[in-house]
């Protein structure tokens, strides 16, 4: 297993959309290294030919009757919004300028 570098952590933080400061990156490289070493022991378990288990119960598709039922009003849905406008969530620009 390759060690996690500071650049790796910066890349992962970018993927996770967390704008880590330099100090946070420095600290997290060391901490994540220790944790990764510990969790990598799963690879030493006798897991060849074992069926992966993603959930405690057998997953089945669950549906409900396709009927209208009460739901949030627009006011309720927007009540927690950082910004709202014309009964919509107001968001920063989503496209780059170039």
């Amino acid at each position, binding site marked *: 297993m390759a060690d996690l570098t500071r650049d790796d952590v910066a890349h*992962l933080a970018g993927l996770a959309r967390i704008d880590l400061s330099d100090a946070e990156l420095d600290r997290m490289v060391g901490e994540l290294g220790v944790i990764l070493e510990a969790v990598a022991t799963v690879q030493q378990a*006798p*897991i060849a030919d074992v069926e992966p288990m993603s959930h405690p119960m057998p997953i089945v598709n669950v549906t409900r009757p396709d009927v209208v039922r009460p739901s949030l009003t627009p006011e309720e849905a927007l009540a927690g919004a950082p910004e709202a406008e014309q009964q919509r969530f107001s968001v920063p620009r989503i*496209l780059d300028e170039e």
Partner: protein
Amino acid sequence: MTTDLTRATAAELADLLGAGATSSREVTQALLDRTAAVDGAVHSYLHVDADGALAAADDIDRRRAAGESLHALAGVPIAVKDVLTTRGLPTTCGSRILEGWVPPYDATLVTRLRAAGLPILGKTNMDEFAMGSSTEHSAYGPSRNPWDLERIPGGSGGGSSSVVASFQAPLAIGTDTGGSIRQPAAVTGTVGCKPTYGGVSRYGLVALASSLDQAGPCSRTVLDSALLHEVIGGHDPMDSTSIDAPVPPVVEAARRADVAGMRIGIVKELTGEGFQAGVQARFDEAVQHLVDAGAEVVEVSCPSFTYALAAYYLILPSEASSNLAKFDAMRYGLRVAPDGVDAPSAEQVMAATRDAGFGDEVKRRIILGTYALSSGYYDAYYGSAQKVRRLIADDFAKAFESADVLVSPTAPTTAFRLGDKLDDPMAMYLNDIATIPANLAGIPGLSVPSGLADEDGLPAGFQVLAPAMADDRLYSVGAALEARLTAVWGGPILGRAPELTEVSR
């Protein structure tokens, strides 16, 4: 009347209310007064809703006076962990990113509490998004252990454990993803149960790891947990993983407290080495009590448990990194603009918000999960962990062929000091070594006090595990042990905790 309403159990309060010996308002007010007196020191609550609780109490008193047929627990107040949505009451999950958020809907289990007439006293403190074993990762400061205010009340549900241990509420709701109900119960001398996965609806439970999370009861007695379990359990069409079957007969099991002929399996891998001497000693005595009550002891081995912690700390961060992606600063919660950027993009705002709004532990786990799920590493990490998860479930299935329940100490140690493990994430994770396997397999578990450790005089917990949907067995064993130990102690274990009003003065 001489009964101290704050010390009464939920079952006792239900009887008093039913007999007209007290009112829900009187009980609720007594608990709110207790909170005013001690919560400055304990910090169980993130939010107290005195007006709402008293209004709900008055409503129940009115309906009782009018002769309406009410639920047995109607009028008995409860505290709810801040990870469950409550309409009109703030829900922060212990995080800055949700500071001030007031959900527009109730979690299903909150709906059931309200329908049964339990006044909601407030929302309890927790590690941020339930990530932690001490409440030290709460963005709003830690809760404290009523047995020693310099020590942790366990986590993530340290607000719910300390609120019942400090007599601010007879009942509380917790959630358990890797031990967050059971470990806090163990270190505070209280009772907590993680039901079978799917036994209690997760609708409105802000998800940490969807395949592991389960809400359950916290209380001071086994019967009280069973009574609450019955209220919140059962099928919910709003949760696709909810089990469509009746709640196991938990109350009947707690009342009968019968373990005669039951086969109790001691899990070899969850005793001995790594467990504090006083914790192990109380465990051994507890097993003997169960034998005296007619149970039979067998030893079982679950070799894959050695890998459980590692598998858990891959599966949980993977699911958490996905679940917490919804905190994007767009629809609710915090929004922070990045420094020195004119007209920032939505992505930049999201990244700045998540840096400002999440604490260190949450960031660590999100990044770890992002790594474990990333292309090229998926098979080595997340994939391997899922295979270990299967081995653990298989180990349980095999163990339950020779035992009706499995037992172990709940946590390896008694409560540690605040700050002791804060800078060492791996040391913090080890607190959950005995509780994690149950979450991975989806089986139910309960922690009941086993006594005080000799070396520090602090509470230790006894864990009982049962096959899926056999939650009633937990209550049989827990109640049988509780009855015998309470007789030996000459009263409830919390009677030996220091007087808080004295401590906080």
